[in-house]
């Protein structure tokens, strides 16, 4: 009962001109929790992160981090948070190591503490080899890792990650996911924004779907997926294949109901969402001597989630009835640029 929530917002609002970026946002994340803030571009994700990290003042409502008000106790909040924005905020002309030391010193570490911590993080994020090179020579994935390292240098209790994997190749994305999981395991409270349902599912312990600046659905990833529906696999058999044998194979891969269409030689079934599942099904069918002409996996996309939860598409469209339907064209409206 007595524990202070790591992140808490109540009826938070913020508008930029006539654009309502936040329209009564309510969030609560317990200490050690991982909240995935899921929404399309312009839903208000970045604005929420900017308010919570003291970069932007809300118009009304309350926001607290570890019990500290982000407006009245902003200085205190900054002692406890780390922020990794959408674009790696680093000095291109400094080396990776110099960037970390600088940010460590600005984050109230002594010079020697900052050095020690920088080397530790460089090693942990596999950047030791590049530590002495100017950041402008880094690849996209390396920059993101260094940026994340920079936000960790002061050992923050609450970490904000704004679209940490947007624009990364699958390999770098997997590395980022691994790092994020490790941080979570160490007990860091995380708020991460994402446009990908899969990412929220993989990383978050709770998910809040936001649209037009407010939460439209929240719960655990499983609860959310139950609302939206699961991944489905569709297997198209080659002419003359044994449908019954194929059904038996697919049944072995799922606990859901397997539907078979004898006239089309097609099987569809819900399937667990995990990497490599398609390959497993194909191998099993092959081993059973079933000849397959096509296998497709369909996952509920963010569009599906939105369609189901909000009744409209995720992409901004002309407001049907004015009011809060108008979404900002970009979320950078409040950014310094």
């Amino acid at each position: 009962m007595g524990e202070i929530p790591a992140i808490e917002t109540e009826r938070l609002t913020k508008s930029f001109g006539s654009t309502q970026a936040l329209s009564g946002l309510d969030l609560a994340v317990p200490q050690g929790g991982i909240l995935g803030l899921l929404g399309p571009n312009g839903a208000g994700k970045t604005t929420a992160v900017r308010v919570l990290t003291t970069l932007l003042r809300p118009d009304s409502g309350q926001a607290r981090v570890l019990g500290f008000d982000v407006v009245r106790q902003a200085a205190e909040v900054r002692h406890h948070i780390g922020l990794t924005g959408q674009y790696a905020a680093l000095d291109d002309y400094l080396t990776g190591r110099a960037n970390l030391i600088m940010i460590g010193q600005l984050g109230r570490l002594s010079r020697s503490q900052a050095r020690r911590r920088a080397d530790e993080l460089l090693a942990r994020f596999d950047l030791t080899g590049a530590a002495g090179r100017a950041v402008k020579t880094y690849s996209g994935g390396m920059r993101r890792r260094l940026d994340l390292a920079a936000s960790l240098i002061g050992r923050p209790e609450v970490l904000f990650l704004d679209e940490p994997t947007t624009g990364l190749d699958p390999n770098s994305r997997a590395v980022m996911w691994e790092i994020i999981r490790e941080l979570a395991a160490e007990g860091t409270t995380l708020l991460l924004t994402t446009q990908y349902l899969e990412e929220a599912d993989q990383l978050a312990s709770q998910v809040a779907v936001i649209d037009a600046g407010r939460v439209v659905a929240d719960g655990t990833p499983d609860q959310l997926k139950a609302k939206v529906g699961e991944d489905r696999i569709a297997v198209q058999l080659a002419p003359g294949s044994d449908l019954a044998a194929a059904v038996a194979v697919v049944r072995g891969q799922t606990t859901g109901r397997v539907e078979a269409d004898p006239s089309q030689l097609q099987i569809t079934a819900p399937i667990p969402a995990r990497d490599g599942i398609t390959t497993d099904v194909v191998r099993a069918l092959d081993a059973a001597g079933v000849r397959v002409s096509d296998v497709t996996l369909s996952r509920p996309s963010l569009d599906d989630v939105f369609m189901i939860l909000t009744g409209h598409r995720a992409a901004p469209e002309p407001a049907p009835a004015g009011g809060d339907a108008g979404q900002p064209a970009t979320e950078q409206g409040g950014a310094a640029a």
Partner: protein
Amino acid sequence: MTAVTISPAPVRPVSRRRNLRWLISDVAVLAKRSLARIAREPETLMDVTIQPILFVLLFAFVFGGAIPLPGGGNYHEYLIGGMLAMGLAATAPGTAVALVTDMSSGLIDRFRSLPTSRSAVLAGRTIADLVTQVIGTAVVAGVGLAIGWRIHSSVADAAAAFGLALLFGYAFTWLGACLGMVLRSPEAAQQLGFVLFLPLTFVSNAFVPTQGMPGWLQPIAEWNPMSALAAASRSLFGNPNPAASVQAWPMQHPELAVLGWSAVLLAVFTPLAVRLYHRKAR
């Protein structure tokens, strides 16, 4: 929704002296960061090294012969006071460009999310720019010596001339800092800097005595701070200073005028830049 009662979190004890120590440390870290770029890429210093050298050569050997000095005197010796003023004013657009760049890259947002002292970002930048001004001033003096410019006064007077020039230069970087807070792209900062800087430098006695200008332009040129700075340097170095025969107050008291202009620039643009910086959180 159930209301959550929150017990007030303990507030970190803050002492003034501790804050001051952190401010100094933050400013040092940030100034060092800006200067580190120069060490890695010395070509970024071209605007305070190559550019003044080109201007000195251009005016000394191309235009200078056609510019008569009222009361006589060597144009090469006259030129250096004006060149010092120009070199210092030329760094202000650089301040703006650097700040706009840090703003748009998100780096300043990162600084603002850290417990860093609020004014350290601007102070660190302007102090780094002061260091580049010292380098630029040394380059101008060096090339001046090469073309025959000499100091004919005491060491104290010469030191006062350099001191006044750098004071004005530093005050001027805060104008650049304000532009950096208002403009949206480094290109815009670069262009606006040029548009402001060109008339400021050329409608002055930096390169040409004001006596030859049309009557309506003379008061503008005489009250231009660039004229006061050039005249103060010439007078303190013991170089030809035709402005001494101009009746306007700043030309009669150029040292005081430079002090006054510097004080006004600092009093107006330092708090304005800090305010604009904080307003970014609106």
